[in-house]
Structures are given as structure tokens and as C-alpha cells.
């Protein structure tokens, strides 16, 4: 992993949320990149090779759980820790069945958020 590679990749179609999370993570010392367009997720992942992905479930035109399932089923990307997030009431169950490592519901406490990201880095 080179220094330019972000350790955390944020995927959400809401730019404000992406920037807010970026601020929080940067403030906590993580290298962060975010992706607003779900079509480019694959490309981002392949290029950036992040250690942790934080992804919203409902992306414009795409379902985050599909991306999650695909990443987890690809041996090249299956090692990436994926934290799914959503404001949708039924989301957690769907995300866990899509093999996401963790789930956090929106809105969240930033301490909880940071705890989950740190936990993702701590896992092998």
C-alpha cells in the first residue's frame, strides 16, 4: 500500500454526507477518498485498493448490497472490510445478508462511527 492510497473509501450519492464523513475520518487521522457515483465503484476499488469501505445502501440507480455481495465474492476484493450504512428501517438485515462486515444506521453518533471504522482496521 503506498502513501497515496486511501485507507478508507466512502461511497454515497449524497455529497454532503460524504464530505461530512471525510471530515470526521480525516480529523481522526485516516486517509479518505469518496465516490459519489455507484457506476464507478468498481473502478475506484480496483485502483485505490482501500482497506475499508463505508457504503450507503441506497445509491442512485444502484443497490449497495449488490456491490457489497460482488466485492465479497471476488477473491481480489473479498478481504476489504465493508461497513454498510443506511437510514432505511429494513436496511440492517439486508446488509448483513449481503455479507457486509458491519452496519451503522443513519443518523449516527460520530463516536460510534469512528469506533466501527477502527474496529474494521483492527480485524484481520
Amino acid at each position, binding site marked *: 500500500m503506498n502513501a497515496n492510497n486511501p485507507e478508507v473509501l466512502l461511497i454515497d450519492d*449524497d455529497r*454532503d*454526507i460524504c464530505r*461530512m*464523513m471525510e*471530515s*470526521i475520518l480525516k*480529523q481522526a487521522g485516516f486517509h479518505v477518498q469518496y465516490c459519489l457515483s455507484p457506476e464507478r465503484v468498481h473502478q475506484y476499488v480496483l485502483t485505490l485498493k482501500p482497506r475499508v469501505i463505508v457504503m450507503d445502501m*441506497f445509491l442512485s440507480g444502484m443497490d449497495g448490497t449488490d456491490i457489497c455481495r460482488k466485492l465479497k465474492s471476488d477473491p481480489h476484493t473479498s478481504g476489504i472490510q465493508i461497513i454498510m450504512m*443506511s*437510514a*432505511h*428501517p*429494513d436496511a440492517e438485515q439486508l446488509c448483513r445478508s449481503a455479507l457486509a462486515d458491519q452496519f451503522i444506521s*443513519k*443518523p*449516527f*453518533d*460520530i*463516536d460510534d*462511527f469512528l469506533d466501527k471504522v477502527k474496529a474494521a482496521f483492527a480485524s484481520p
Partner: protein
Amino acid sequence: MHSDIQPRPNERRIQGSGQMYDLIQSKDWENNAMGAIPDWSPVLVNLLNVLLASGVPMFLFWGPEFICFFNDACLADPADAGSHLEMLGCPAKEARRDLWPVLSPAIELVIHKGISVGAVNQPNPVYGLAGGADSNWTFNYSPVRDEQGAVAGVLLICIDNTALIMGLNKAVEHERQFLNLVTQSPVAMAIFKGKDFMIDTANDSLLEKIWFKKRQDVLGRPLMEVFPELATQIFPQLLKEVFETGRSHIENGAVAYIDTHSGMKKFYLDYEYAPLYNPDKTVYGIMVTVINVTDQVEARQQIKDSEERLQLATEGTHLAIWDLNLQNGQFVYSPRLAMIFGYHGSTALNYQEMQGLTHPDDMDAVVGKAFASALQTGIYGYEARIFHSENGIRWIRTRGKVIFDAEKRPLRMLGTMMDITDQKEIQDKVAMMAAIVQSSEDAIITKDFEGRITSWNNAARRIFGFSPEEIIGQPITWLIPDDRMEEEQNILKRLRNGERVEHFETQRKTKSNDILDISLTISLVRGAGGEIIGTSKIARDISSQKRIERLVSVSEEKFRLLADIMPQFIWTGNPSGGLQYFNRTFMEFSGLTSEQLEENGWHVVVHPEDLEENLHQWKHSVANGEPFLFEHRFRRHDGLYRWHLSRAVPSKDLDGNIQMWVGSSTDIDEIKRHEQQKDDFIKIASHELKTPVTTIKGYAQLLLKTHGKGDDVFLAESLLTIEKQVSKLTKLIADLLDITKIETGNLQLRKEKISINALVQEVIKEIQATTPSHIISLQDPETLFVYADRYKMEQVIINLLTNAIKYSPKAGKILVDIRRSGHEVDFSVQDFGIGIATADHKKVFERFYRVSGKDEKTYPGFGIGLFIVHEIISLHNGKTWVESEKDKGAVFHFSLPVCSII
């Protein structure tokens, strides 16, 4: 003697003593025909002296006038002597004129013939002689001669021979009796004399009844000559032995064969051979006495035979015989009687013991009554229960007769006894069967093979109208309608082929020619030997049943019509859950035919995703008889699925048994879609609302982190307020969503074992961080676990605590308590606020309930917090309640089962 009566002058004087002597001495003979004594003949004086001295009564009649002299012995009765004394010296003719006719013939005879005359065995002729009138006397009249040898007087000597006569009479009697015995007695007798057994005597009895011979043909002939047939029998030998030994031979019941007028016959004889002895003790003959006992023996034989026959008969019938002596209570019985009571035949039972074995209920009422009646009528008879030594209670039948004496006093009772338990049981069974037949609601009829009715019960009478008198003996065709006459033959044919004919539905006609619907069950009636003797028919009048069936069929038609025009699906199922009927609406919707449904079942119509749960729920309802309520999708004929709400309820009979299931399915696709849309909308709405909140909250917290601790107090407080209000907004959105979930039943619980104490402590800590106005103090002496959804429980506790704070603005404390109550955890939150009126205690847990009145505007809110608490606790099988009074604060409780999982 002669010298004594020699006349001597010096002795011519009367000598002696006694009454007659005195009388002779004192008598004035001078004036009597006799002249003075000294002039009397010496013969006379001497004779008188002898006479006077004799104790034997003597009379002397002297001289031509028969002057009477007699002695004292003639004066047997001294009291009466006076009248007889006058006879002395009188002529006999005058002295006893009454006796003279008796005396004179004898006296005349003695005087004229000069011989002695004796009269033997005369009645007492001279009144006054001893022995009285009954005595017997012998009178001896003897001539008395004078000196010249001429008969000068008659001496009468009286000899009392009463005793002699009596002895003689006895001998004569004996003789007579003996003769009778021998000749007339029914006992045959004979006397054989000598070694040749010469027949000396044989009486009529023997001759007529045994020998069948005439007297002249046997007397004086040897026995063996008369009866050659005896040569081969034992009798000659026996006679010989008696003759030689002198010992009697007696035999009873000996068999003898005798040639009678009608050939040889067998006789039974009792006989005795008794030796007859000579004075020198040698045997000269044998007296034979024979009694023909043939009749008795044969009668005895017959009695014996009939006794044996009776014995056999009684053994065969198990009849016991008994004989009760009513005088002394002696009770004699055959062994069978003891056996009837369950004892060995040899057991001795007395009458009292036997009574003791009689059932107490029957003792007086039956036996006592029968006994009393028997003493009156002579006939004894009863049936009663007894205690058998092994087999419990048995029934016996006793029959008897009373024997009375001449004075009508009961002497004995003879009778029989029999165990009739089996008969009784059979009787009871027969009676029971008869009662059943009679009381049956079904007509029970039997007929013979000619088709004639042989029995007819009450129900038959009721159903068909014929009385038994009218119908018995009549052909069964009386009951058969003209168009069904052949049916009977077919039925018989089927029966003979061993087929069963049960509940055969047909028609029969009644007395009034009404046609009835009948259900027939026909069986063959067999005799004791298994041969078929007729048939029995059980006929049930099913006219009303048929009528009901028709009514049912009409109402079913109505039901079908109704069901078919319903827009809903209507279906019915049997008690085990198999569906049998679907209405036309369902057929049209599914596009299936009845045959297809029958073949493939209704499962094919149900959406595959719903089928498993559908079947599960349906089986549960059928098994438990609980109403069925389920939402599922049915496939339309064009392949499109539409949501339906199906309901089914069991239809039960009076006993509560399920008869059928009646179900309906209503198309709720529109409703369902609207609901789904609403649900989706709320989810989307909450999602959409939360998205901006997420950003706001994130920045607020980030800003607080980066700038909250600086000198700018205003900034810090502003950021805090933003964060607090954003949290509130988040919670409101969450509550709205929860309500939707609760309403649609979609609130999912993720239960785990959690420590209620730890959870409460966490929540309190969180709330205290943002709400410093109230001090929340916790009392939790014991750590308790519940099996619950952590997030939902947290929500419950938050709602209760925030409520307590919200409605007690003027108070400074909240008390939280967790304790065990039996198997429950009891959680409570107490505030000291505005309280709740008792009437509102239930309402506070209702949805959208809000505090009313003046406080309404002071305490805004959706009114959903306590509703959510109540629903969540209910889903956890817990309870919620409140204790409160208006203005006196409130204590909110919930209780949950203590978690038993370790």
C-alpha cells in the same frame, strides 16, 4: 267209707258246728214232715254230719218230698244268707219254685233210675253260691240209699269249675286260632311227616296260592311225588337237613319255580322249615310256613328301579331331593343339595344352615312366605337367591309338598331343589332382549320362509299401523308396495349368498297405504341347530330424515346460489382440513375446474412464497379447532397473483365436535397495495428525512469535537442545542416508523439475554448527560436478566424516563426501581408531576392519547411514546400499568418474565 255210715244208736245225733248245724239243732222238727231228729234214719244223720263238715257246697234233698238240707259252704254270701236259710226243712219244690224246673229233671232221673247225674258247665243255678251269676258250676246229683237199699234222697254236690271252664275255653280258643292259622291264615302252612316228607296237612293258602293243587291230590302223598320239579331245586336238601339236624331253616326272598296252571313261574318266598318233635325228642315231621312275597319283591324291585331311575333323572337334571321333618326339624337330602350350595356332596347341612345361606332379601319375602303358604295349601315352591360357597350368588328353585296327619297337622315336607341360575340368566337375557326389541325405536320384524310374519314389535306397530294381532301370520307383502314386490326375492338371494343387507334404503307401505322411506337391515334367523328358520328385519322410518335431507338439499342449493354470486371465494372443508367445496367465484378466478381442484388440490393456487406458512397455519387451526386467518396471494387464471385475506371457522355440532370448516377469501390486493405503498412511503420518508439529519448531526458533533472546548461559549452551547434537537428529530422519525411497523405487525424482535440493570444504568447515564434538571436515582438490589430485544427495551426505558421528566417539570427527582416479583422482573419509574386521573389509567397506553385540558398545550407531542412502550412490552409477553392520582405524580410499571436461560 262204708264202716263210717254204719248205724249206731249212740251216734244218732247231729254233730258239728257252724250256722247250718245251729239251725238244724234249733229247728222245730216236731212240727215238720221230718219228725224229731232222734227218729231220723242213721243214714240221714251220718250223711248230714259229713255234709255239715264239708267245705264243698252240698245239698241233700231227702224223702219223698225232697226236704232241703244244705251246708255252710252253700251260704257264700252271708249277707244274703237269711233268705236261703228258710229253705232248710222245706220241700224243694216249695222252697225254690224258681229253681225246681232246673232241679227236678235231674232229681227225678236219680230217684227213678238210681244213677248219678252230672250237669257240667252250668250257670250258677242256686242264687247265693259263691262266684255269682257269671260263675260256672258242675252239679253232681247222686242217689242216697237207706238201710234197705232204696233211694231215699238225692245228694247234690256243687263243684265250682269257673276256672276250669275258663282254662278249657282258652284251650279251645287256641285250638281254634291254630286251626285258623293253619287253614285260614294267609300264611301258607303244611306239615310233612317222615323221611319221605309225607304231606300230612296243607292249608288253603298253600294249596291255592302256592301249590295250585287240591287237598285230596296231595294229602298222604310224598312231597317229591307231588312236586317232581323240586328235584332240581334246593328245597329237598334243606328239608332233609332240618329233619336230620332238628334245626329250623329260615329263608327270605328265596326264588322258587313252580308249575302253575299257566306254566312255570318264578316265585319269591319267605319260608321256615320247623322240626316237629316226638316226646322222645326225635323229629317226626316238619312244619312248613311259606309266605309268598313275590308281589312285594317285585314291587320293591320296581320301587328300587324307579328310585334308580329318579336318581338318574335327578343327577341328569341336577335336581336335589330333600325331606324335612316338620316335627323335629330333621333334614335329609341327596348329595346334590349340598353341591348346589357349593359344598361336597357329603357335607352335612342342617335346615338352619341352609336357611343361613339364603339371600337375606329373599329369606322372609320369598322363602318365609312360601313356607307359610305351604303350611296352608300343602304346596311349597319358590325361586330365591343363595350364597354359593365359591360362585357368589346363585338362583335356586324349590318345589315341595307337605304331608299332613289325620288331624291336618303338617308332619313332613318333601321336595326338590335345583340351581336355575343359568336358566335365570337366559330368562333375564331373553327378557332383556324382548324388552330391547319392544322398546326399540326401529321396527323389528321376523318372518318365516313362507314370508309370514312371526313377530312384530311396538315400533313396527307405530310405524306401520298394524297391531300384532292383525299382522302376525300374514304375508310380509302386506307391507311391500306393488312396484317393489320383486325386491324381497332379491334380498333373500343376497342373504343366502352370505351378503349382508344393512341400511338398505327402500320404501314400504303402512296400513293406511302411505308410502314410507325405510332403511332396512335384514339378517337370517337361525335355529338352535344353525338351520335357517326365517329372517329378521330391522326397519327404520327415514321418511322424516328423507324430508330433512330434501330440506337440507334445498337449503344447500340456496347456500350454493348465495355462495356463487358472492364476490368473495367461499369454500368448505371436512373436519380433517380437506377442502371439498369452492364457489363459482373461486373457479372463475383460478380458471380451474372442479376435477382439476380435486386432482391437484388448492395448493397450486397459492403463491409458492406463502404456501409453507399457509399450510402451517391451516394445520394448526384444524388441529386445534381455532379460527383460521391468513393473508396470502392466489394465482389468477392469467398467472397474476392477488393478495387475499382468508378466514375460516369450524362449524360444530351440539357436542362440540367439528362437522366442517367454512371459509372465505376476500381479495385485499388493493388494500394490500395501498398498505404497502403507505409502508414504503413511511420508510422512504423516514429515510429521506434521516439523510439530511445525518449530515446535520455529523457536522454538529464534529464541530462540538473541534470547537466545543474553546473559549467561545456561545458557539459551544449552540452546537449542543443543535445536536440535542437533531437527536429529538431522529427519535420522532424512529417512533413514526415504529408505529407503522407495530400496526402492520412487522415489528421484528431480536431477543437475547440481557441484564436489565446494565441496560437501565446505561440509559440513565445517557439521559442524565443531556438532562441535568432531574436527578434519576436507581434502586436495583438484584441483578436480573430478561430475554428481550436490547434496542426495543432501550426505547421502552427511554420513553418512560423522558415521559417522567416531561410531566414533572417542577420536581427535581425521578425514582427508578428494579426488583424481582415471583418469576417476573418489575421495573418502575416514579415521578412527582401532574399525575393521571384514575379514569385515564388505561387510556394513557392508547395510540395518540394526549394529556387533555389546560395542560394540552403545555405538553405537546404525538401521544405515541406510551403506546410504543405498551406494544413492545406486550410483544415480550410482559405487562404495563400505571399507579397514579391527578396532581400526585405517577408510577409507571412494566413486568417481564425473568430469563431462565443460563
